[in-house]
């Protein structure tokens, strides 16, 4: 297990490095306007001085190395347009708590709704909950999120009689963003749990348990649900990290001052260093989530062996 963890960790770090380098190199191709908050007004000498000061005239490998060294020290650079001269790590640290609060709430809600829904769907195949859940899942998967979130905001706020935009102090405005963020994950958990549970239910040990006379309730709770939940564990860190980082769309729709909304903001203002930092954070989260998921699987399910069987295929 330890050997596996180390190996997995090192490959993740390599992937991280590759992604950071690629993002960095790609963003070097952007026009230099994105580093100035008043590009039209400054003259050529000042532009050159600023570029020199930012180190943008160095060859790209040197820039990349400097960036990585800074990164290790927790320095993501400075914002160029969004909030001139402010360190990006500080800006993000200010925005992160609200995203984390919303993310944890919506994650809890989606687990709370998604798991019972998936279990109910698997139990009564073809009955009401199954049909209801299927319609729900089809709707959520087929209609683009960008569309139904607008309608939830539009009609939800007028139906509940609450303000359209988010206000941290007014708890009632938290309801709709949290629910909207939970919708997609709920459908996801319900869909996969149902699939895994149906797979489990057709296995021999369940038939044996039934033949032994174990009650349906017990089979479901003690055997099927537990076993079906194991493959889902792998996704939970990833989805937790993503929700905690804030949904880009919902945060900007409700003007929540979080990280996702920040990305849309800085893209609108063409602030290169900020875009670079946030894009890197989002891409790295995927890797960290996957790493955690894999390790968690190993801890939870002792049957999973990490020794590669040679010649198995």
């Amino acid at each position, binding site marked *: 297990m330890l050997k596996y963890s180390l190996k997995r960790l090192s490959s993740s770090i390599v992937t991280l490095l*590759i*992604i950071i380098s690629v993002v960095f190199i790609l963003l070097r191709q*952007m026009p230099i306007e994105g580093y100035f908050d008043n590009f039209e007004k400054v003259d050529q000498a000042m532009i050159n001085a600023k570029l020199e000061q930012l180190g943008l005239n160095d060859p790209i490998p040197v820039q990349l190395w400097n960036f990585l060294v800074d990164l290790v020290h927790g320095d993501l650079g400075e914002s160029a347009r969004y909030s001139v001269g402010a360190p990006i790590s500080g800006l993000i640290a200010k925005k992160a708590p609200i995203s984390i609060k919303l993310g944890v709430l919506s994650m809890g809600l989606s687990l709370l709704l998604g798991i019972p829904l998936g279990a109910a769907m698997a139990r009564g195949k073809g009955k009401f909950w199954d049909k209801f859940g299927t319609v729900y899942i*089809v709707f959520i998967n087929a209609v*683009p999120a*960008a*569309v139904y979130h607008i309608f939830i905001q539009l009609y939800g706020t007028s139906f509940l009689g609450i303000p359209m935009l988010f206000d941290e102090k007014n708890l009632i405005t938290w309801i709709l963003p949290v629910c909207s963020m939970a919708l997609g994950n709920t459908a996801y958990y319900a869909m996969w749990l149902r699939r895994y549970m149906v797979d489990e239910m057709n296995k021999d040990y369940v038939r044996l348990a039934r033949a032994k006379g174990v009650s349906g309730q017990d089979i479901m709770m003690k055997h099927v649900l537990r076993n079906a939940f194991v493959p889902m564990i792998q996704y939970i860190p990833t989805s937790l990290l993503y929700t905690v980082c804030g949904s*880009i769309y919902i945060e*900007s729709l409700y003007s929540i001052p979080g990280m996702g909304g920040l990305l849309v903001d800085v*893209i609108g203002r063409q602030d290169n260093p900020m875009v670079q930092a946030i894009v890197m954070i989002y891409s790295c989260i995927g890797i960290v989530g996957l790493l955690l998921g894999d390790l968690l699987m190993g801890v939870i399910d002792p049957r999973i062996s990490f020794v590669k069987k040679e010649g198995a295929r």
Partner: protein
Amino acid sequence: MLSIKENKSKKLEAALADQLKKDLESELVNEDELFVLADYDEAAAEKTGYSNYSYWRSTLQVFLKNKVAVFLLCLLAALLLFTFIQPYLPGQYPANLINNNPQTGKQLSNVSPSLTTVIATAPAGTVLMAEELKDADGWYAVHNVVESLKARTKFNLIEYGEAWCRIEYKGKTGYVKNNFQTKLKLPEDPTAVPYESRSNFKLDMYMQPEDYTNDGTALYVKEDCLTLNGDGTATTSDEAQLRVLPSENAFWFGTNNIGQDLWSRVWSGTRTSLAIGFIVAFFEALIGITVGVLWGYVRKLDRILTEIYNVLDNIPNTIILILISYILRPGFGTLVFAMCLTCWLGMARFIRNQIVIIRDRDYNLASRCLGTGTARIIIKNLLPYLVSVIMLRLALSIPSAIGNEVFITYIGLGLPVDLPSLGNLINEGRKLVTSETLRYQLIFPAIVLSVVTISFYIIGNAFADAADPKNHV
């Protein structure tokens, strides 16, 4: 004492024994029949194991049983056909044409959706001011205003009403609106009619106690509804339909805020979005199948492709989309390119896994032993096996491409507004949602988009179910 379980099993045993006894008694077997030689039957010997089973016919049969999917398929086909013939139908406005009022040159912005351009009707015998239009033959611009009174002009009030007052000014009689803006006040003695009055605002004196204008601009009537009186006025001979434009072509979905016809924009946008969807799906199939087959079949490539997959798959799709659209100039090509960069990943992995499972099955081994080339094995032996998976993923990639386009447009990195797509229509409509009367600009594109994406999703799933050999009889 017997435990419950033992008790149960005893009961079961007894029941089985009873059943067996009954079965044996009921079946009277003639033992001689069992040992007679069968005759040689030529027809039976010639009979081969031919069956007219056809995979695709069976797939079709299973698919046709799914009534919802068949209905949606018809709907989608009709919709697709319609989006292509729509510009050639009579009475369509071009999608990017800004419709102006022909007299004032103002944009016809935010005209509510209706089946005609008629926004008011005047009963027969109504006298209106009429003016012939130069560039639209047979149409008259009509309005109801006889005279415009400046602020603080004195006039005689003949009749006082809640909404309209009848007044006399320079020998003409007409009507003025009585509302919070015109503020016509009654004198001390309201019975003293006529009396002099004035307003602190500009006033329009109307011929009829009815506005008959579109926010102050003239409306249009066809020639044959009017009889001209020669003094610049005309009397309606029938019930006249007053239109916003000198044209009978309606704005079925209304117009947007710069006066473009939303109906043709929605269909033009559907065309763009479907084009994005189909192009992305095509590349997904092309790249996904090629990479997947190589990845699964060529053992040397397995390692490196797995690493590439891990790197790319670890970054969220939306982030790649945002990054690429941010770096390149926004446009159709950029959007499609950004989506194609990541769309093939899922398909390639799926195909790779399937191919790893089936490539060493006996029939492939036999094929290889008989000297079949690799390409032929892949095309003839492996890929037909994967049709259901491929079709499913293609059908699902179209709605997701359309959805991605909406998302990217929302962020502000999407298509320019002069290339309508469902994404930028929805985004334009979203900005107006705070006004209840303008919500149609969001709702119409959203409905069309949802119909398209849900149809693709359900049809894809139904087809994948049907193509799965497990579901065939």
